[in-house]
């Protein structure tokens, strides 16, 4: 067993970044995730020589990542909703230039400046692209502090496997709350050479160009087709999810991140009352675990999707079940967190009393 600590989600993520041998963090403070840059500023450079740079804006931070990632280095940032919006331009360029990097969005309530309380309103932005053009981030949704730590190394592994930006989509509560976390071992910084990385033109080889500009439509389409093939491969190889009680389920509660835990409790209370409720939690939001929903749909009377937004992931659930079962949605917005009781109450209203 590794070192066990009581840590905030933000701190666990920061500590995991040091231990994953990350080369650089570029960021800009924003509540509720400023602990990440504070923790790294305190700990990282002295321990591994990792660069920690407070940028002048999120716009600058994401472009510093572009530069560092283009050199084949492990570069990352974290922010919260308004800051992530500012990074969308850079993310589109990074996705197009096929650079690996890791981001975390500690989602707060919006739109606009909104609130600093937890929310999941950035699901669409995160899973459907976010910036301009046809691209996807690979999206991981942790549901506890342990996964806030674990998904850092996993995120970089996936980012380099696919040369694609990876986003950890968490929320203000996961960032701020403390839980028991078993820390991963310290890995060295790798200093690996990549044939695509701009580190100075090789003496016996071609120069490397990192760009997202391809003026010829045929060439740009070719790039798009390559990206789409990559996303298909992710869909085939990287889908991750967790289920409970699906064997005898007549209903399914589904949710991601923090809310999936609340839904789990609602399921337990519901089972005590005699409702046969199962549970699905997507861990990768992109690629979305379509298959498990398609498989369970014909076997159940309905799926209740619960989110801290106005209903975003529910669209992917509906696309996955293809009308094979009833899908209902319950959500709270603007930083309000639903309770297990209110989830169950709404479930009864929608599925039991109406029957």
């Amino acid at each position: 067993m590794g070192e066990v600590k009581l840590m905030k989600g933000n701190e666990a993520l920061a500590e995991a970044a040091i231990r994953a041998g990350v080369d650089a963090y570029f960021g800009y403070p924003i509540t509720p995730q400023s602990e990440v840059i504070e923790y790294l500023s305190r700990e990282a450079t002295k321990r591994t020589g990792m660069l920690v740079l407070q940028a002048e804006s999120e716009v600058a931070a994401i472009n510093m990542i572009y530069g560092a990632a283009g050199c084949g280095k492990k570069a990352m940032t974290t922010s919260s909703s308004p800051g992530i919006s500012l990074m969308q331009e850079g993310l589109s360029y990074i996705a197009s230039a096929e650079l690996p990097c890791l981001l975390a969005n500690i989602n707060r309530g919006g739109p606009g400046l909104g609130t600093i309380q937890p929310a999941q309103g950035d699901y669409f932005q995160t899973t459907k692209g976010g910036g301009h053009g046809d691209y996807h981030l690979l999206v991981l949704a942790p549901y506890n502090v342990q996964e806030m730590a674990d998904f850092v190394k996993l995120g970089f592994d996936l980012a380099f496997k696919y040369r694609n930006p990876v986003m950890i989509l968490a929320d203000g509560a996961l960032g701020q709350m403390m839980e028991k976390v078993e820390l991963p071992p310290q890995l060295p910084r790798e200093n690996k050479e990549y044939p695509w990385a701009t580190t100075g033109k090789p003496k016996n080889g071609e120069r490397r160009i990192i760009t997202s500009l391809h003026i010829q439509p045929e060439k740009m389409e070719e790039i798009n087709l390559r990206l789409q093939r990559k996303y298909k491969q992710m869909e085939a190889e990287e889908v991750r999810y967790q289920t409970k009680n699906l064997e005898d389920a007549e209903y399914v509660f589904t949710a991601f991140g923090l809310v999936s835990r609340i839904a789990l409790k609602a399921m337990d209370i519901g089972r005590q009352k005699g409702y046969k409720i199962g549970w699905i939690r997507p861990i990768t939001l992109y690629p979305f675990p379509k298959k498990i929903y398609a498989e369970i749909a014909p076997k159940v009377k309905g799926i209740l999707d619960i989110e801290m937004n106005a209903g975003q992931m529910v669209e992917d659930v509906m696309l996955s079940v293809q009308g094979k079962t009833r899908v209902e949605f319950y959500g709270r917005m603007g930083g309000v967190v639903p309770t297990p009781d209110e989830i169950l109450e709404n479930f009864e209203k929608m599925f039991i009393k109406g029957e």
Partner: protein
Amino acid sequence: MAGEVLDVVAEDIVRPENLVYRRPSALLDVDMHYCPGCGHSTVHKIFMEVVEEMGIQHDIIGVAPVGCSVFAYNYMDIDMQQAAHGRACAVATGIKRMLPDKFVFTYQGDGDLAAIGGNETLHAANRGENFLVIFINNAIYGMTSGQMAPTTIDGMVTTTSPYGRDPKTMGYPLKFGDLIAPLPGVAYVTRQAVNTVQNVRRAKKALQRALEYQKQGLGFCLVEIVSNCPSNWKMTPVESNKYVQNVLIPFYPLGDIKVPEVKK
């Protein structure tokens, strides 16, 4: 004149010992997309000459902007990254911080550097990032065909200042080099031009000095080059070079704005 006579003369002349002008090895042998007479090609050439002379072709990484010089990487035979509009100094920060022993430069136009990228440029300068910014100032947006730039001078006609720039409503022309020169992180700011042979030679010398300063780790260096845009100024190349001399240079005087203090 008979053709055979000329041939004989040419064969007689084209010999290594007679070489007075050639393409630098770090510049690729391809056609450039720049308009005839444009200063970009001259700056590309002299900068690649400096790279060749310093022997750093394998130790330099460039950042191309958005603007006419977005395709700089098609001509410079070195590793390069293409940055989003205005973000070159942020991208260069990422590169230089990861590879502090390599030479890093950005190549940016006036809109990219001083308008949309003003903040990135200012803060990279203020952090004293140890890289070179080559700033091509032709007082107009070339790639999007002739709109007003932050450096467009008072009264100058562009497609978005069709009656001449009126500073009262459109703001004043921005002297970005003068703006950042007082910052302690900035080592070297100079303003050059490539409209005459003498100015080309001086500009090349400035680019070389800037890379020497980078090697010494002195900090942020900005080499501004007052340049032309014959197409969008609607002038011949010769007229445009005269306009640089007679109109732009009086407002953007050439010479060093800040040089590193000599350590005793």
